[in-house]
């Protein structure tokens, strides 16, 4: 692999390691086992949302509704549990609801020929959040069964359950994107939808699937979050759509589509988690944390742009 390709592949990872090294020297507590486990646990929800967001962004789309789908799923799963539905069934139902809401995004995009995924997902962002508030009257639904809380707060040995969930999802998404024909279709749609269509890719069906997957990961995030907080609360996931977009972009995906990996996205989510955690440890106020995250997002994409330009210049010199 060429140096440029290596850098593209492992650039975000190098960034993450450098960040950890810096935070390790600034704070004694950062590089402790307990804290790192804590970072993983805290990053789990964003990582899950980012996986769905990644698949959407590979098609050159965007999903603004993941935070709200998380909120609605969160409330619905809590209601189901309160109604006495067995936790396993409630979890499956929540994933199904997330997938259904996501596929509505896809259907609106492809069948109503809305001009950009921004529109249907912006609509869904408001509708789902509003429904979440309507359903529970704005109040959280607390005290959930302990077997359900396992998904957010439990652990197997020293490994937190949310981390296991994230790993399973990562493996499935990685295999899906790199080893299946449908995954290849998704990259092709992002690269050139016209050429994909003329090569027999059922573009509309793939897009509907992509948004459905994003809904499923949002619901998975809801299950983890509700478990951790021991509550289904309607404002869950407020603003988390932007965190997931940030993680995907920091992880090396392109808004223009056709590019992006599960590994990069996971690293992107961890960079954001590590940054928040490290700044907390150093007693930086939440207000300043927001400022730093904003700078990191722009800087990460800028580095990518610089790298791409250098690569193109190198190529122009060769030709």
């Amino acid at each position, binding site marked *: 692999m060429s140096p440029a390709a290596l850098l593209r592949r492992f650039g975000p990872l190098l960034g993450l390691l450098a960040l950890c090294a810096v935070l390790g020297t600034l704070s004694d507590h950062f590089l402790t086992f307990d804290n790192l486990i804590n970072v993983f646990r805290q990053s789990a929800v964003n990582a899950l949302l980012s996986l769905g967001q990644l698949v959407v962004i590979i098609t050159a789309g965007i999903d603004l509704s993941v935070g709200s789908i998380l909120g609605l799923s969160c409330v619905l799963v809590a209601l189901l549990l309160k109604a006495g539905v067995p936790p396993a069934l409630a979890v499956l139902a929540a994933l199904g609801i997330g997938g259904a809401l996501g596929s509505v995004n896809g259907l609106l995009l492809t069948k109503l020929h809305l001009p950009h995924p921004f529109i249907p997902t912006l609509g869904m962002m408001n509708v789902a959040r509003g429904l979440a508030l309507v359903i529970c009257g704005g109040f959280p639904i607390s005290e959930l069964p302990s077997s359900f809380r396992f998904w957010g707060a439990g652990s197997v040995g020293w490994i937190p359950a949310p981390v296991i969930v994230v790993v399973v999802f990562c493996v499935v998404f990685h295999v899906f994107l790199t080893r299946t*024909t*449908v*995954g*290849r279709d998704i990259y092709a749609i992002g690269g*050139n939808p016209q050429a994909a269509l*003329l090569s*027999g890719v059922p573009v509309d069906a793939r897009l509907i699937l992509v948004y459905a997957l994003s809904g499923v990961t949002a619901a998975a995030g809801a299950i983890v979050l509700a478990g951790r907080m021991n509550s289904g609360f309607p404002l869950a996931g407020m603003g988390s759509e932007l965190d997931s977009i940030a993680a995907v972009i920091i992880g090396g995906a392109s808004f223009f589509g056709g590019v992006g990996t599960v590994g990069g996205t996971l690293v992107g989510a961890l960079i954001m988690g590590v940054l928040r955690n490290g700044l907390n440890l150093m007693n930086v106020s939440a207000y300043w944390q927001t400022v730093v995250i904003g700078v990191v997002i722009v800087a990460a994409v800028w580095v990518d742009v610089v790298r791409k330009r250098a690569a193109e210049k190198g190529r122009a010199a060769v030709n």
Partner: protein
Amino acid sequence: MKPSAQLLELRGISKWFSGVRVLEGVDFEVRAAEVHALVGENGAGKSTLMNVVSGIVAADAGQMLWEGQPVRLRSPREAQDLGITFVHQELALAPQLSAAENIFLGRHPAGGGWVRWREIYDRARELLSGLGHTIDARRLVADLSLAERQLVEIARALAFRARLIIMDEPTAPLAEQDAEGLFRTIRNLRERGVSVIFISHRLKEIFQVADRVTVLRDGKRVLTTEVASASVDGLVRAMVGTELSAHVAPEAAAGVAGEEAIRVEGPVRFAVRRGEVVGFAGLAGAGRTELLEWLFGVGKQAGQIFVNGRPVKVRRPLDAIRHGMALVPDDRKAKGLVLGATLHQNIALASGRRRWFIRAARERQAAGQLLADLRIKAAGLDQRVLYLSGGNQQKAVLAKWLYAGARVFLLDEPTRGIDVRSKAEIYDLVRGLASRGAAVLLASSELDELLRLADRIVVMHRGRIAGELVRAEATEERIMQLATGGVQ
């Protein structure tokens, strides 16, 4: 100084684009109050010449005189200030503004920073009715027909006191009766002393509307004559060049055609057998691309397709692919390839859709073989196609369909913009496909290419089949006559 009878004179205009000569020492004159037709095959240099006249591109050599005075245009604006307006094929109007606003776009009559709307509407009405038409100047351009939009463009030119209006194939998108209306407008312009340069592929129209006609071929002027003393045959000969007319394809591998592979019935009817290459000729906009894309499931069904004698429904490209069809589109970058993806990904894209998991090893082996067979020059299967030359990109599109096992090839301008060597290799490939039993539909604007490769040539004109020529009787003249609607 006394105004010259010549409004516009070009002397020895030459132009190169990246080393290719597109105009060579062209002389061209337009008299005051004259309708001057400009004709030539695709690529003869008409558009470039008109771009020089309208200040869009600068000539590399030669001189331009306006009313006898030498002028040097540096921008379309300068041409407009002289009184030269170009009415493009794709009209340059703002659809969400009214006809009147479009007429004065960028030069609203204004006073003290306020737009004088009453004056705009009054003057727009005057201009439009002066052209002999009644269009409500307040209507949005989006709600106007194509013919009406052209009138708005012409009114706009007059509002800028145009003395010379260039119309690039204005009748191409128009229905017959709208074209008649446009001719009346053109005659009306001439009576008011405005000159018109009229570019058209339809030779008959020239005899209806023009005073003189100039023929370009390969960037040179070959003929300027009074229309009254010209004939369709004479113009076609001048466009094609007589020395070419006797040219017979040497590689005429008279294909041993097998059973019928594909047949179409409807507004357009034809059939192609296995082992046969059928050429589709026609001028720009004759409907060749639309026909091939329609066969491939893009756009509305406009007839019945039969594959291997059985009627099939093709609602989307995937259906066409399942019936063994392959489309090599006219624009490989926009429609043929995922430029940012690798050769491997592009070659495999059209196949294997019936299974879930990618068989990477098998794919790489087959794709590697195709790379060698088609002599695709690349660093390897993982090279992104973005960085391949045009010829190699086109071969990659073909490789995709060979890998998918296509039996009916729809080739739309397969050699457009590629180097001579790749062109020859693609010719070999096309003949090779046919000799191995594939059916090939080859749409091309290069008559030479059709005469070399095709067993039969279907000539299209305005979306219809104007005629069909078997290889023995096909000549450039016969094709051009049919393509220009000159003869039945």
